[in-house]
């Protein structure tokens, strides 16, 4: 019998195991990735946890209303012992109180806002800045690339904690400074990744064709190159969020966080240090919140990485 040869058909009918025929459609990288992700149980559970934390953060005022305790209100009669010690979890304070008689559950909810806000915005800034620099550096090459690559090198060798401490002691604690500082120290890794990716595809035929035809560089970078290098960036961004969250908590723990009495997980852990022998709830609950959130983002990021590029584990450079 004759067999078809030549052009690959875009649609064929192929029997499936149940016997009925089904269309096989070409899928985009996003659809394929999402499908693989959906099948990853760990990643889906982690996504569920992330969604829960986000809702918990958004609904912090609701939590405050349900318990009847505003986050910064000190309850001296019911929330503190006569000797000034925190009270354990009880009917009135589900997660117990801190050393000023404030409701820990409500403060964890408001603290989630800070962590998520800094996590997402600082990551966004880092990724935004890194992508732009990486695209420009990789596409233009030559002296532009030399200059930008050196700048990236310098940014990567700056001692983060020392400079963060110095900066915050000059400007004083504030949310904006924290976000900018963390964002500033994270963009360089993204730039490196993007630059490497751009180098690997800038000699492909469709890019060369676009350049030959005279498409403007800006359009080539953002419309042709970017979509093809974005996958590792997304993976990296998802794994960067928990690092940013922990970094913000670290800064806050060191006293470089937000102005008191703002509730924030790192600050709560710092305050709880002196009470770990007498008031376990003061350290356990904020610590668990931080741990669970970070773990969820990390596991979800692993899943995203596996879904979008299951062959290459070393695609993403780990952030120092």
């Amino acid at each position, binding site marked *: 019998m004759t067999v078809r040869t030549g052009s690959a058909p875009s649609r064929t009918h192929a029997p499936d195991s149940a016997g009925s025929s089904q269309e096989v459609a070409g899928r985009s990288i996003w659809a394929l990735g999402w499908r693989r992700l959906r099948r990853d149980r760990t990643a889906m559970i982690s996504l569920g946890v992330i969604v829960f934390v986000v809702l918990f953060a958004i609904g912090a005022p609701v939590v405050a209303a349900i318990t009847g305790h505003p986050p910064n*209100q*000190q309850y*001296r009669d019911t929330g*503190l*012992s*006569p*000797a*000034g*010690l925190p009270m354990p979890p009880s009917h009135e304070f589900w997660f117990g109180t801190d*050393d*000023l008689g404030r409701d820990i559950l409500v403060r964890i909810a408001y603290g989630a806002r800070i962590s998520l806000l800094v996590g997402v915005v600082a990551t966004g800034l880092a990724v935004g800045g890194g992508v732009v620099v990486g695209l420009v550096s990789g596409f233009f090459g030559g002296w532009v690339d030399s200059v930008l690559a050196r700048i990236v090198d310098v940014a990567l060798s700056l001692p983060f904690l020392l400079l963060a401490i110095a900066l915050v*002691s000059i400007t004083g604690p504030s949310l904006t400074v924290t976000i900018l500082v963390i964002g500033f120290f994270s963009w360089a890794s993204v730039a490196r990744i993007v630059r490497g990716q751009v180098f690997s595809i800038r000699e492909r035929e469709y890019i060369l064709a676009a350049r030959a035809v005279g498409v403007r560089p800006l359009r080539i970078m953002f419309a042709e190159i970017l979509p093809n290098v974005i996958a590792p960036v997304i993976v990296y961004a998802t794994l960067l969020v928990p690092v940013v969250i922990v970094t913000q908590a670290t800064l806050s723990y060191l*006293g470089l966080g937000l*102005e*008191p*009495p703002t509730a924030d997980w790192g600050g709560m852990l*710092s*305050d709880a*240090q*002196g*009470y*770990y*022998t*007498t*008031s376990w709830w003061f350290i356990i609950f904020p610590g668990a919140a931080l741990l669970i959130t970070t773990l969820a983002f990390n596991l979800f990021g692993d899943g995203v990485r596996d879904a979008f590029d299951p062959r290459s584990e070393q695609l993403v450079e780990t952030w120092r």
Partner: protein
Amino acid sequence: MRTKTHRFAGTAAVGVLLLAASACGSSNNSSSSSAEGEAVRGGTLNMLGAGDVDYMDPNVSYYSIGYLNLRMWSRQLFTYPAVSSDATTAVPDLATAIPTEANGGISKDGMTYTITMRKGVKWNTDPEREVTAQDVVRGVMRTCNPVQPFGGTPDFADLIVGYQSFCDGFAKVGQSVDAIRNYIDSASLPGVVAKDDHTVVFKLTHPATYFVDMLTLPAFSPAPKEVLNYLPGSTSLGQHEVSDGPYQVDTWDPTKQIVYTRNPAWDSATDPVRHAYVDRIVVDETVSQDSTQLQLQTGTDTADMEWDNFPPPSQLPNLINTDDPNLNLGESFSTNPYLVFNLESPNNSSALNDVRVRQALEYGINRDHIIQVYGGPDVNTPLTQVLPPGIVGSEPNNPYPYNPDKAKQLLAAAGHPDGLTLKFLYRNSSEGNRKAFATVQQDLAKVGINVVGVAVPNADFYTKYLQVPDAARRGTWDIALAGWGPDWYGNAALSFFKPLFSGQPSFPPLGSNFGFYNSPRTNTLINEAATATTESQAAQLWAKADVQVMKDAVFFPITDPKQANYHADQVNGAVYIPAIQNFDPTNVWLSSDAQGG
């Protein structure tokens, strides 16, 4: 002197092991218990702390941990004994007796003190040499050296004849060892004279019933001529100090360790105050507060006493409830912390200059709430006037019981019916400070006052804010949280009023009147009390000054806190002395089965 406000020093997490050990430790402790009875000589006393002395120089040191260190190796004419019932009554140390009019020690007009010194007290020089009256004179002269003057000189600058002009001349000679030595050897200080090798004569500008107590200040320690080869207060001097006490500084690794060994020149027959049972004292200055407490509780040989780490406040309630015999809550005779108001703040159209506004603060701040977050009334006795009980002249007086409604009325009467915004200055590294700020913020909000925090690093608190007059006058702060303790005990009201409330001479940077309080009436009362001829007269006048300061509402006293100290089981004969904020290491002995470490 200035004290640290309660420090809630944090620490990195200690392992579960230590937690378990501390849980087991308390049951172990009950078995050995203090072997009262015959004192055991020998052994190494291990003291654990987190900080170092301010200066290894008796004539310059002005900090409680410096004083604890000096107890081992530096003697004064008079000092405080390790007598638990009476550790604030001065006894003769280098002197042979307390001077009185009857024994000729004090002249009839009360302005000349003739003090006879013991014979046979030696410096550990090579060869050993007697401590003489000339050494005492040299010591007093060193207190106003131009390199590092003693911080408490305002207490006696105008009391000792010729002291002020001696110091004025001293300030001009420059900061070299030679210049300082030459000045001390040649200039004269008529108010402190060595009549012979064993007799010192002090001449005062007015009678001072507190003079003997004041002579317990380590600043009045004798100084041998060898110390003139080094700059005052310097590290190199600290490495070459000369001792007349039972121990000597064998090695000093600043901020890390101090090792004291027996002083071969010390003769116990000449020292009625110190028994010096242990052979060696090792101070480890790298231990955290939590770790110190855990080690002391587990009863290991290498942890005997505290250095400058006290029991963590969060653990005190438990120690108190279980009646732990190794815990001591002693009187501190201090006002720590307290809130000082900035009378020169331009904020809110100079609202704090109006006594009604300040009285509103007095009525609107709840003392019990602040005491609660500092550990509760068991450890913090409420203080509602200037002088804590036990200081001559202290009389109970509570002019402003908590009353937020009255506070609001006063604010309205003063022209601020809509409230104020006040800046609260505090140290951000201190957990106690942070909690006090949050508490005051919440309480004053009820009165319509919005309290805004100004959290600053420890190092800047005094040097950039409180001691800088411009910072106050520009309104960088309205209320500040500070602490104060007496420089000596008993008849010590002067060391409260003079540096804190005596008008212009006590303004920063010289004094600690951070709020710029200047009341002619109070100043007069202070002068009269300081020059009173009998102690009872002085007491009455101090009490009047106290009432006046409270009426002017220039500060808000909070508490006279108890000083908590803990020692390990194997330490016996531990007596708490307020002057060193600790048990006396020169009078403790170690159980025979726990001598090592």
